[in-house]
């Protein structure tokens, strides 16, 4: 399949050489903004629209991700509202002039809306495929794109009615067998018990009793429901209500997009017609380079002065509680269990501690409880492995907050998120040791109590560094570290400048203070692209950047 080809300069053409697309298209159209994306677009569009649509979708996906990270406990409804709001913000007015003309030319209201809908479907499909092209290139990009797209699909799927679901299912997932009435009668009490145990609302229960429609599928198809115990299992069959089908369809969707992505990655070179390669490839590649995915790989080189010797000072000043806590426990017990070693070890690697220094650090921390020889035998391999020098030589990255919060462990384990695992007195004491502002300690403890662990961590950061509220929550220990380094570096340079200004005596006292206040904002703007930018790039600037 050839994906992109151009006929004349300035226009990119989608050509699909798959037969039978038209026949399938009719069915897909039924669901105006819900698509399995089985059919690539096939039309001519301008380069400008190509990029504008992709950027708009990218912004929606990114901001949705950021919103989720910061507000992990919102209801589906709130997420959906946010999604619609973002779509309104980014996708509105991007549709081509044809639709606008149709709407404006006094056509009847119904015709105008249907034209607009069609336009939306088109924009949705094109933007999806452009991003697919941009994000198919590495495993990491694919993973991110897949996760965001699935999340969006899941949210949208939830808004559809029973009939629409049924139609959608009969087309995309015929392997679900309806449960016959007599069998359903015998399992119904248990099904109701499952629902009660999952704290389903009374309305949901009433809906099921009023209209008991259940499907029987092999449990292997619903691992998500099984792992949360949200389904009744009997002899290997899962009894799934019509409402609970969403995850299954999402799985189907995920499989489809995932396959499409890897297919595209394999044929990346053939995607672009030879004469257009020069122009299109950098454009598509730039879509991911402007990546707003939080990436802290720059941290290691920016502040690359970490060694086993200065690690304790760095830890005391810049480590988030989850890492500081591990360092403290390690120093006290001269040992850490596996989970803790992984969590801390990968983080240390992330902040730029070289492998030799890491070996030195762990060896000295484990002594004298563990002799050098025993250390080499038991632990050194694992450290080298983390650095990609053993085994399958993968370059492992440090855990993100979502991973760490998900960790659980026994009584002897110290890894995981301290805001989740420590009890309140212990948490207060730990934050006190960090010299966190008292008011912020209480805020962090309250946030942790309500299960907002990342917000608790952000509050602690604000308390420790005495900064106003951050516009981005904490989403990874490395981010905390990077922000901390950045703020301290700014303060130092400000102090130096202030001192210099004072020393020359040329400037009045007021100006010295002003310089001190100005410096951070300049540095912040400079560092923004690397360490935190979860901001949407401005359309104009990116267009010029990409067209070159």
């Amino acid at each position: 399949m050839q994906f992109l080809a151009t006929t004349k300069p300035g226009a990119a053409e989608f050509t699909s050489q798959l037969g039978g697309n038209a026949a399938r298209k009719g069915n897909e159209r039924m669901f105006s903004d819900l698509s399995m994306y089985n059919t690539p677009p096939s039309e001519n569009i301008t380069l400008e629209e190509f990029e504008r649509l992709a950027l708009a979708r990218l912004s929606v996906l990114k901001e949705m991700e950021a919103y989720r990270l910061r507000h992990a406990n919102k209801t589906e409804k709130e997420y959906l509202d946010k999604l619609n709001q973002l779509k309104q913000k980014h996708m509105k007015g991007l549709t081509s002039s044809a639709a606008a003309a149709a709407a404006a030319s006094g056509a009847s209201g119904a015709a105008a809306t249907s034209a607009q809908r069609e336009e939306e479907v088109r924009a949705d499909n094109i933007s999806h495929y452009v991003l697919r092209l941009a994000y198919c290139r590495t495993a990491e990009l694919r993973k991110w794109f897949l996760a965001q797209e699935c999340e969006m699909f899941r949210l949208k799927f939830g808004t559809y009615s029973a009939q629409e679901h049924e139609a959608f299912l009969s087309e995309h997932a015929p392997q679900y067998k309806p449960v016959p009435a007599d069998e359903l009668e015998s399992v119904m009490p248990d099904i109701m018990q499952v629902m009660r145990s999952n704290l389903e609302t009374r309305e949901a229960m009433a809906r099921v009793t009023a209209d008991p429609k259940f499907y029987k599928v092999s449990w292997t198809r619903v691992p998500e429901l099984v792992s949360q115990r949200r389904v009744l299992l009997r002899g290997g069959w899962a009894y799934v209500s019509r409402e609970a089908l969403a995850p299954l369809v999402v799985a189907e969707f995920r499989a489809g997009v995932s396959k499409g992505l890897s297919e595209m990655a394999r044929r990346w070179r053939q995607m672009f017609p030879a004469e257009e390669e020069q122009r299109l490839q950098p454009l598509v590649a730039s879509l991911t380079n402007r990546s707003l995915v939080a990436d802290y790989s720059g941290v290691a080189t920016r502040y690359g002065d970490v060694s086993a010797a200065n690690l304790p000072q760095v830890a005391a000043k810049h480590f988030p509680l989850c890492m500081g806590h591990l360092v403290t426990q390690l120093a006290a017990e001269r040992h850490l269990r596996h989970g803790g070693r992984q969590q801390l070890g990968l983080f240390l690697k992330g902040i730029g501690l070289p492998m030799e220094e890491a070996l030195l650090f762990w060896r000295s921390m484990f002594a004298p409880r563990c002799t050098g020889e025993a250390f080499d035998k038991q632990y050194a391999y694992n450290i080298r492995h983390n650095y990609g020098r053993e085994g399958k030589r993968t370059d492992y990255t440090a855990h993100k907050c979502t991973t760490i919060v998900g960790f659980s462990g026994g009584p002897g384990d110290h890894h995981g998120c301290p805001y989740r695992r420590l009890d309140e007195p212990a948490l207060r004491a730990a934050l006190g040791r960090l010299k966190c502002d008292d008011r912020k300690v209480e805020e962090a403890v309250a946030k942790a109590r309500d299960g907002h662990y990342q917000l608790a961590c952000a509050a602690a950061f604000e308390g420790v560094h005495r900064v106003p509220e951050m516009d981005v929550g904490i989403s990874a220990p490395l981010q905390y570290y990077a922000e901390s380094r950045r703020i301290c570096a700014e303060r130092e340079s400000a102090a130096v400048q202030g001192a210099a200004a004072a020393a020359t005596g040329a400037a009045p006292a007021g100006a010295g203070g002003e310089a001190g206040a100005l410096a951070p904002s300049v540095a912040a703007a400079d560092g923004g692209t690397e360490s935190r930018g979860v901001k949407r790039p401005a359309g104009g600037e990116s267009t010029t950047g990409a067209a070159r």
Partner: protein
Amino acid sequence: MADTAKKQRVDQAGSGVPGISVQEAMPTYYAKLFPTQHMVKWLAYGNDSKHAQADSHFFNRREFCFTLQGDIFVRYQAFKDGAALQEAIMRRCPDKIDIGPVYSANPMDRHKFGAAFHPVERELVFDIDLTDYDDVRTCGSGGHICAKCWPLMSVAVKIIDKGLREEFGFKHILWVYSGRRGIHCWVCDPSARQLTDEQRSAVASWFAVYKGHEEGKARVALLGGTMHPAVERAAGILRSAWEQTLLPAQRLLEDGPQCEALLRYLPEEGLVETVRKKWTEASRSRNAGNTDVNVVRWRALEEAVAERVREERSKKGGLNYKVLGPLERCVDEIIMAHAYPRLDMEVSKKMNHLLKAPFCVHPKTGKVCVPLDPKAVDAFDPVDGVPTVTSLLGELAAAKEAAEGGKPNPEAWRDTAMADAVSVFESCLLDGLAASNKEELTGRTRVAVAVGQMNVDF
């Protein structure tokens, strides 16, 4: 019963052959006692037969890992057949043998295949270790195991076994005592062997009601007043075991700190006070007959909670579920926190996780990892009822003496306690597998025939 007979035999053998260490005994154990043929029969899943669809390379793609003396791991070993396996075991005399997955190619040739080399099937396994119960068992910690903490393992077997059979529909389940302080479970159904890592995680999470430690107490995932039918079933098993064995054996309500720890699960300070008062009253009027003090105190606690629930329910102005919920669940929460199976989740989640093979010998205790019958798990005695390598050698010597003059018996293990272990292995796993293996092969025939017909049609 077979079990008592086994014990007697061990007793007769006494300490087995005196003055011989486990390591010294291993060569003889591997030569005369280790049931290699049975293991191969199991792991070949019928592919060692003459069936037209039998995949003669199937066994050869299975990874074995030997742990040699001095903790040297030799991974990615694979063997053509039982004879090759037996030869390697005798030659290297490993301290431990682990079984890994079946790969897409012979693990010895893995470098030739690069990314195409990946695990394709593997039994669904579980590992439960008594060390994970150290915060709630009072009889010992670490590698300790005794009759007082074994009930924790036996309820675990009952709960997981029943769940696997009734909820997931698995049939071929092997339970093994791990030789020291835990148990392993191997689910060998064809469908179980094909599970993806995600599906394995899902099964593990399904059983994971115990969610680790938080705020000084074990966290169990119970929501609302109603339990999931599967959890309810487990709770039923635990409730009946609680008063009968777990509570008195673990003496959870005898000493101060232990009691305090348990009282932390009660949601209200006032309730804690009521329970304390009831306990002092009970100990003053020491005429509860010969009922165990733990049970007396437990019943007092239950009664206090029930009273409080009744009081809350009879309150006017509707039910306050914020108060009522925690009250209604706290009793079950205590039981679950102390006795619900604590799986080592990581072992179950990944297809390529290694697990120690049955019939290995624990290098420290000398105990053999014997299969155990889940139906008779209560009667299983991990302390004296498990044959050790030295006791087996003793029995072997005794049998040889008894058969003086006769020619050497190649199946001498049949005269030792190993015979019982192997017969459990056969009755719990191999016998059932035979039919399932045949079915699997016939299934392959059907597919092959269908494909063949399609070709003809073209």
